């Protein structure tokens, strides 16, 4: 095995040719990153340039690899929830949700409607959060600085709502196996209602700001084209593929957590460039706002956690007064609950695309194997194709339009 490994070790050799004549285009290798502001994390790309045109691009990932999949195998099923937050730190609730759904599929427990609707509402808030960060930083990369402030103004409101619900701004771990972590706090309807009434106007404001900016339109329209066949071949999902006209949205095609009960449209465009991806995400923000409004207005009554005492921690009050609840509490906290042996793959639509967890259980209180099929990893694979043949200056716009998170890529 050692031999097999050594055979494959290679290093990227830098080249810099001296051109034959002064007018001939000069070939050079340019190292971009890992600490480049527009890579939004630590991504290194080795670019082969001819003049200012990119001949080839070789992404080098793994700088944020933290071994989360290995770590999952050491934790109990309930403890893993906090690890999933850290995978895609911009839309952590989508990660919580997919993990919870996968384990619930193995446990075969039923989730009450209120918990499902709360999950939908919070995941959509986290989608807004993620798209706002994307829009702000993407516009900042291209040179529209004020967008960043407007987007982060709204993001702050979302983070306050998340804090109100879970006690945490970013690493919320709000969605747990069997339901959600806490009962919605007092006054949550007012807080979300106030935000969601104002939000569609804010999206119009972003649209006006950017679309009336000739620099923005010139730098995004017709830039970063990649053919649909290439994207499907290389595993690209999410807004990238919807901007090429494929209405592939797992919320519609494979509904989970009662998404089938909500009325929303899948945003698609056909231009397949940076501008189309921006329009798709803008439209998704409007649709998410619609979903949140529906969830707010039609929130069902009832319990917010499943009736599964062997999985869900009992209420504090019950734990102190009922012997049975105390026993369950002790067992869940010390040993963790057992999950029947089996294997399951569950995927949901995260702000970046298809996020799927493949979980193998051997019947003990710890996962045997957790594989995270993260959207950024699949999307980033198409980077060499996307960057090939475009100008170096456009590569920043093209990179930004992919909306990858390196924590999500490297895990």
């Amino acid at each position: 095995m050692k031999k097999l490994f050594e055979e494959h070790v290679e290093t990227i050799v830098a080249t810099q040719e001296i051109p034959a004549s002064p007018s001939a285009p000069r070939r050079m290798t340019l190292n971009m990153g890992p600490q480049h502001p527009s890579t939004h994390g630590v991504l290194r790309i080795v670019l082969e340039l001819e003049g200012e045109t990119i001949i080839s691009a070789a992404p080098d990932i793994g700088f944020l690899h933290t071994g989360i999949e290995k770590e999952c195998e050491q934790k109990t099923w309930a403890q893993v929830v906090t690890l999933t937050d850290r995978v895609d730190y911009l839309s952590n609730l989508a990660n919580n949700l997919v993990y919870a759904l996968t384990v619930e599929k193995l446990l075969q427990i039923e989730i009450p409607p209120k918990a499902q609707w709360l999950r939908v509402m919070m995941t959509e808030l986290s989608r807004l959060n993620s798209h706002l960060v994307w829009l702000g930083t993407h516009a900042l990369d291209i040179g529209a600085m004020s967008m960043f402030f407007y987007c982060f103004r709204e993001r702050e409101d979302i983070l306050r709502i998340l804090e109100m619900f879970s006690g945490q701004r970013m690493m919320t771990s709000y969605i747990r196996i069997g339901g959600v972590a806490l009962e919605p706090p007092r006054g949550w309807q007012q807080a979300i209602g106030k935000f969601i009434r104002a939000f569609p106007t804010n999206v119009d404001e972003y649209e006006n700001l950017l679309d009336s900016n000739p620099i923005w339109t010139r730098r995004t329209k017709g830039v970063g084209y990649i053919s649909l066949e290439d994207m499907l071949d290389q595993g690209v999902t999410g807004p990238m593929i919807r901007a090429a006209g494929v209405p592939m949205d797992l919320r519609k095609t494979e509904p989970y957590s009662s998404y089938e009960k909500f009325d929303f449209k899948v945003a698609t465009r056909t231009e397949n460039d940076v501008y189309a991806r921006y329009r798709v995400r803008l439209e998704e923000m409007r649709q998410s706002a619609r979903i949140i409004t529906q969830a707010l207005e039609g929130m069902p009554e009832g319990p917010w956690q499943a009736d599964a005492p062997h999985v869900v921690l009992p209420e504090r009050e019950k734990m102190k007064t009922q012997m049975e609840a105390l026993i369950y509490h002790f067992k869940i906290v010390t040993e963790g609950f057992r999950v029947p042996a089996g294997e399951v793959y569950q995927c949901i639509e995260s702000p970046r695309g298809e996020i799927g967890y493949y979980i193998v259980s051997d019947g003990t209180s710890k996962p045997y194997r957790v594989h995270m099929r993260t959207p950024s990893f699949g999307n980033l694979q198409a980077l060499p194709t996307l960057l090939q043949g475009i100008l170096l200056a456009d590569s920043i716009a093209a990179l930004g339009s992919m909306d990858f998170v390196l924590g999500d890529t490297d895990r």
Partner: protein
Amino acid sequence: MSLPAVKHPAVLETKEAFGETTLIADPAQIVDLCRYLKHDEKFIRISAVTAVDWFPSEPRFEVVYHLHSIERNVRLRVKCRVSGASPEIDSVTPVWVGADWYEREVFDMFGIGFRNHPKLVRILMPTDWDGFPLRKDYPVHGYKYDYGNE
């Protein structure tokens, strides 16, 4: 999301569990089977390739392919059992280009070799790393540190 049975000589066994279909396939014919699944069964997308280590039982590894058909809106899992002594399997990159990074990840984490892969190098770990972290006999803290005396 039920799926009519896939009839191909490489399929050794078909399992249905939790509403998901799993095919156990012969590792020697995996590329044939994948070509058939892509072109005749319309599984045009490969969602992920991963592996499971069943140390110490034999065959030790399971290579797992998750396929998706957009047209038929179904998903399929294909599994191949690979021995622990010389873990090697044919690469499916000739069928789906997108399997490239996933196979590199499996090579990186489990040390399973993929024959005919265009560029089989480590992807997440440093290139000079020793060992394969997601194997069950690999300690959580790695080999670098010794916590024995603590």
